[in-house]
């Protein structure tokens, strides 16, 4: 297995300009992502889960170069990416493409489907002539299951699921190796969601794509991922293979998250591990463990020292506890 993309100690900070008291005073800093590291092998899928505000979307947006990382490195096919260099970014975007959360908003309402899917071709393959481009657009639309005769229609004439397929076709037009999926199915209905997940899996198998799949729905993430990364408050809590993480969660947060997932079975007990307390403000992170304010297993060391992610076998976890007992 060759490593496709790896992220080392990535952090993202935002300056909050509204928080400035005077035009010249310092802005408050929001730490959206706190030193996350992982690597994904070619053709594999990494799932990233967490609740809203945990920085999972910011993480993939930083990898894509849509927001600037404040620290850390991203290595693509063995070469580190310099996010300040235009040439590097251009090279990155030929290999890394993205699928967005809101399928309708991710398509320009004033462009036809044909123009939308052809746009990456004109950007990345300027030598392609008009005829070859049309053929390619049709092939892409066929691949994602949009009838070609609809190519001259506008996005608002399609349903959410179809718009997401068009978004996928656009991402594929660049012939990427890595596909970043930022909550691609959370805006879709269950029956449509399954179609899109299946399509992504087929594409991955046929084209050898590497996926980074962000979602808040553990069921979908578990289904599509080889490995799962759990994030909380911008930090990494646990990372393990999908089976291990679901069957034997070793971080208190992962366990709480899993217990809260509703199961479509009337005999299953609705018995989540209730998390007390509120999320601390990301403007003022605690010195110790990020999860301490809501952790049922908290002890003294948790408030003093932030646990660094460490390996326990194949698994990585950021917790002071050696083993999690029920």
């Amino acid at each position, binding site marked *: 297995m060759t490593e496709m993309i790896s992220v080392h100690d990535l952090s993202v900070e935002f300056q909050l300009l509204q928080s400035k008291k005077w035009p010249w005073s310092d802005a408050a800093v929001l730490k959206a992502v706190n030193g996350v590291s992982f690597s994904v092998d070619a053709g594999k899928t990494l799932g990233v889960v967490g609740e*809203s505000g945990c920085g999972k979307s910011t993480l993939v947006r930083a990898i894509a170069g849509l927001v600037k990382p404040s620290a850390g490195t991203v290595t693509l096919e063995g070469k580190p990416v310099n996010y300040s260099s235009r040439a590097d970014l251009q090279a990155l975007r030929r290999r890394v493409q993205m699928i967005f959360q809101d399928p309708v908003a991710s398509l320009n309402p004033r462009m036809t489907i044909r123009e939308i899917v052809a746009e990456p071709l004109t950007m990345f393959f300027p030598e392609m002539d008009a005829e070859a481009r049309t053929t390619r657009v049709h092939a892409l639309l066929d691949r994602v299951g949009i009838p070609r005769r609809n190519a001259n229609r506008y996005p608002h004439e399609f349903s959410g699921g179809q718009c997401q397929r068009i978004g996928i076709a656009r991402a594929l037009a660049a012939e990427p190796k890595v596909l970043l999926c930022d909550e691609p199915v959370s805006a879709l*209905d269950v029956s449509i969601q399954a179609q899109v997940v299946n399509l992504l899996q087929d594409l991955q198998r046929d084209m050898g794509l590497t996926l980074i799949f962000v979602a808040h729905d553990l069921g979908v993430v*578990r*289904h599509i991922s080889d490995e799962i990364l759990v994030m909380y408050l911008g930090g990494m809590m646990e990372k393990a293979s999908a089976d291990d993480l679901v069957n034997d969660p070793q971080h208190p947060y992962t366990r709480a998250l899993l217990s809260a997932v509703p*199961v479509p079975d*009337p005999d299953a007990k609705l018995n989540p591990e209730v998390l007390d307390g509120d999320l601390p403000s990301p403007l003022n992170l605690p010195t110790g463990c990020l999860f301490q304010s809501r952790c049922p297993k908290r002890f003294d060391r948790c408030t003093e020292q932030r646990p660094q992610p460490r390996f326990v076998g194949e698994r990585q976890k950021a917790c002071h506890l050696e083993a999690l007992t029920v």
Partner: protein
Amino acid sequence: MLSVQDLSIRFRTPDGYVHAVNDVSFDIAAGQKLAIVGESGSGKSQIALSILGLLAKNAETRGRILFENQNLLDMPTSRINKVRSKEISIIFQDPMSSLNPYMTVERQLNEVLELHEGLRGRAARARVLEALDAVQIPDAKNRLKSYPHEFSGGMRQRIVIAMALLCRPKLILADEPTTALDVTVQAQIMRLLDDIQKEYGSSIMLITHDLGVVAGFCEETLVLYGGRVMERAETRAIFNAPSHPYTRGLLRAVPNIHAQDARLQSIPGQPPNQLHPPEGCPFADRCSDSRDPCFNNLPPLDAGRHQRACLRPVEELS
């Protein structure tokens, strides 16, 4: 207590009529919990809005909605306003849309009491505190003077639930109450609704797209598709022995976290266009079991405890 009979709702648009709800009938007994499950565009929210007389202006309704033997559909607005929130209250998906950002929580809750029960001062305050305690807002007494934005999303939804509980309504309509919330919070809120239902004895009509939320919560479930009832039965029967192809497809499409299957079972195709609803079964063109008659004839809803609207017998379904 509540009986919806042959309810149809359609909206006038420049392109023609949009048939959102077609001939839907169901009853809710006192103290019962009914779930209405459907995907977007199935008309599930419109049913809740029609019960409260909150439909958009271009809506036309047919049928009857009987609440304690009074038809809500031909009641004048002034009477509906009385029933609304005193007898029936609603919890919306987005807590921020139900709360006024410029008013403290206490004033908003007081306002409800004053409007509907004429309560003021100390008596009102006691009731407000009681409701906030019921929804388990920690340190409620000191947070009365806070504004909605000072609470987290889950806490805000609790306040909305407290607001719905203030007048001890007989029926609570919960329209996707947890969709905007995280899973850990969702679990808390669902458990809270369950506790409250037991304590107050209200009926609950839960509207959701998430089968997982329904499973552990409601006794009875109604599955809606294309504005029509597809199946209606005890929740246990719906999950253990679904008898309608759509329900079956829906259940298979939910990824199960505890079983790693190679492929999700999806339902092919797209939901029907309500501007030109199909002549036959709305699900026919996505159904793997459909035969020619399905496209031309509207399947009737069986009578009985386990109702289904399908032309094909259960035994023949795949």
